[in-house]
């Protein structure tokens, strides 16, 4: 877009060269990808915590 051209009042009315169908396809899978990435990271963390709690902390005996 030329620099000296004024911006449209509504950003949705701005013209760009992006293919709407391709954009829609990408946006459909972006939340799924983010959820998979964050889910894998949290799952690893929780599995590590559970392993230490069940196989290290509990066998070490009672304390109070």
């Amino acid at each position, binding site marked *: 877009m030329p620099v000296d051209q004024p911006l449209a009042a509504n950003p*949705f009315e701005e013209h*760009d060269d*992006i293919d*709407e169908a391709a*954009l*829609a396809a990408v*946006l*459909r899978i972006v*939340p*799924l990808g*983010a*959820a998979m990435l*964050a*889910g894998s990271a*949290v799952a690893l963390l*929780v599995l590590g*915590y559970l392993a230490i*709690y069940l196989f290290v*902390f*509990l*066998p*070490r*005996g*009672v*304390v*109070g």
Partner: protein
Amino acid sequence: MSEGLHRTHEGRVLGTELLWAFGVGVLVTATLSMIVFTALTRDINPPSNVERVDPKTLHLSGEFAEQNLGTVVADGTVTARIIATQFMFAPHCIALPQGRPVTLRFASPDVIHGILITGTNVNTMVVPGYVAQVLTEFTRGGELLMPCHEYCGLGHSEMWANVQVLSAAEFKPDRDGRVTCAQR
């Protein structure tokens, strides 16, 4: 981007975020439930004894006078009294039984110390003016190390004691009910 596509995308993101929040809620609830369950069924809790003691007269009279230190069996109850001071534990070796409930009582006459017994969940601070008490049961026998884990001065790294966890055959109280470390 068209306005319609933008709205559809926002809706999808909101749906994912709500699902994520629900999943995290389930995880947090499950973790807390597990901690509460083991605390109630296996009696695993942070040591939380609050008991005052005068640090100025600790070694002169009362429970932590020199003749009362170490392990004693009275009425079938095993209690070990230990003083943590710059830069040693008194006594330096503590004999305790395996597979029997024991009460560990610590006091400090000078600064804040901390103890842990390696390979067990025994871990507490020893604050002057208070008796730190830990109730536990040793599941394995052998020689364990008990270092000071709270920086207490220049000799902190030299401050440690031995804990000898003895089997029922080795853990023999004398006539006064006292048990000292076995010579090995």
